[in-house]
């Protein structure tokens, strides 16, 4: 299958069940809300080393937030509910509570409760105040610029992690241009994030390593410098490869996000230096969710 000069591999992305949540961070200005979200989602690229995969889903204007201030929706994904709860508490406590003027609310209506203000309230050292408003409990924690408002709990949802596709390009510039175009399109899809830096990973990995202590190592089949050394996936016309990984609250969100990204890459096309699109999988044996690339295009 070829779309606009880009060869589409007959393969599929293999994704896994995860646990996810959405929190809404608000602040006095959009800049401070975004700053809290950026801090909270820092060092959250992969569950392998970060415990959680997180990213900014979208920015919200004042009319879309619970307290009428500008805000940001953040998604977090982990492999277990306990790890998600731990990471949520730690990241909100260290990154949102500390940000000037911030407040935090649950962004999902129903689901198993994850402690949010429920545990952070203890920072108030007994001066915190509970308020049940409209059936939802909020905590007012005194801080140096007033009160930190935190909803008592966030809600946890079943989620999907590890949707992906791989961009193979003739050179670095077209690969970056295509990846950036894909991310821009994918950020318009609700319910999904791309957790790697700028949404793009250059160090795609495979499971295992020659070193027994490592659970993952470089995806040698897609490394251009190893073209002559290993059973490479790359032809002579590919010099640069990037992977985009997607986590979503629903299978549909991951599918929509992948589709938006793939279409954006194909729009750059063969003339723009894009050679192939591929995806990572484990032969279909490990992940419950499969996303065949050719069903998502054109």
């Amino acid at each position, binding site marked *: 299958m070829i779309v606009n000069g880009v060869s589409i591999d007959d393969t599929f992305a293999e994704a896994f069940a995860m646990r996810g949540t959405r929190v809404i961070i608000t602040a006095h200005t959009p800049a401070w809300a975004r700053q809290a979200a950026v801090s909270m989602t820092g060092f959250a690229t992969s569950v392998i080393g970060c415990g959680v995969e997180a990213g900014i889903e979208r920015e919200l204007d004042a009319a879309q937030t*619970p*307290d*009428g*201030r500008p805000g940001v929706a953040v998604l977090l994904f982990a492999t277990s509910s306990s790890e998600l709860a731990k990471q949520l508490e730690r990241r909100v406590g260290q990154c949102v509570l500390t940000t000037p003027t911030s*407040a935090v609310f649950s962004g999902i209506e129903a689901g198993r409760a994850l402690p949010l203000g429920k545990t952070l309230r203890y920072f108030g050292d007994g001066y915190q105040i509970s*308020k*049940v408003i409209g059936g939802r409990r*909020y905590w007012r924690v005194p801080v140096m610029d*007033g009160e930190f*408002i935190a909803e008592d709990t966030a809600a946890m949802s079943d989620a999907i992690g590890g949707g992906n596709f791989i961009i193979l390009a003739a050179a670095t510039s077209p690969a970056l241009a295509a990846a950036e175009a894909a991310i821009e399109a994918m950020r318009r899809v609700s319910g999904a994030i791309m957790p790697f830096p700028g949404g793009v990973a250059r160090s795609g990995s495979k499971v295992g390593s020659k070193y027994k202590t490592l659970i993952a190592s470089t995806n040698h089949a897609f490394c251009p410098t190893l073209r002559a050394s290993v059973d490479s996936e790359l032809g002579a016309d590919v010099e640069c490869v990037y992977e985009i990984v997607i986590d979503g609250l629903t299978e549909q969100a991951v599918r929509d996000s992948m589709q938006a990204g793939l279409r954006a890459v194909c729009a750059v096309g063969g003339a723009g230096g894009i050679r192939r699109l591929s995806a990572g999988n484990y032969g279909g044996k490990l992940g419950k969710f499969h996303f065949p690339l050719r069903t998502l295009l054109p």
Partner: protein
Amino acid sequence: MSGGLALRLRAAPTFRLDLSPLTPERLAGQSADAVARILLAYGRRSVPVGEWFDVRGSADRQILIEGDATRLDRIGADMQDGQIRVEGNAGAYLGIGMRGGRIDVSGSVDAYAASGLTGGLVRIGAHAGDYLGAALPGEHRGMRGGVVIVGGSVGDRACDHMRRGLILVEGACGDYCGSRMQGGTIAMLGACGARPGFSMRRGTLLFAGPAPSPGPTFNDAGALPLGFLVLLARSWKELPSRFASLSRLSTRVQRWVGDLAFGGQGELIHWPG
């Protein structure tokens, strides 16, 4: 109210009449004749509903009470679901122990309305007597949830021992409003009597009209913005009350904390227009 069970009081009773057996969930599916045979406490006697009321319709989770119900006590007691509407005044203990559903009274009600309320909505068109949302004498737990809306004014000791929930008073409040309060919120558009929040431990008294006169055991915390007020005001938007259209340009309010003789974690907030 279309459909439902209608109870028309033929004459004002001499003694207090206890209407607590007549809740929507207890009467569900019963015919008018069956309802007319239900016994009510009347002074020292028990009398069937039919002795005082003309009963028509059938119970389908809605009950309408018409006539001078000033001596009808415990309307909607322990109610869990459905709706009761009273055309006119109601007696004491309206909605006591109520857990869900809705009660609408077009007139005024007597003392201890919404005492021990844990859920649901009570709307009083005119005035409420003393001890609105309060604990009964000897008890330590007043209102613990739900919403009460009063179109007029309320008597003394509103919210006594209140723990959770919301009371919106569109008129004035009497003396000792929020006494011994342990949580929850009362907001008023009118004036407040003497010693608001006396011996309160926690909770919020919100004065959206005239400023209160806090007692000596309240400290003035000054003026400052409180973000939770936006959440509070937004939660009122769907309520059948003038508070739904309350408009405030700023969350900067005057705040007093107290009662300092009882922990001092309660607050009086003046949020004028």
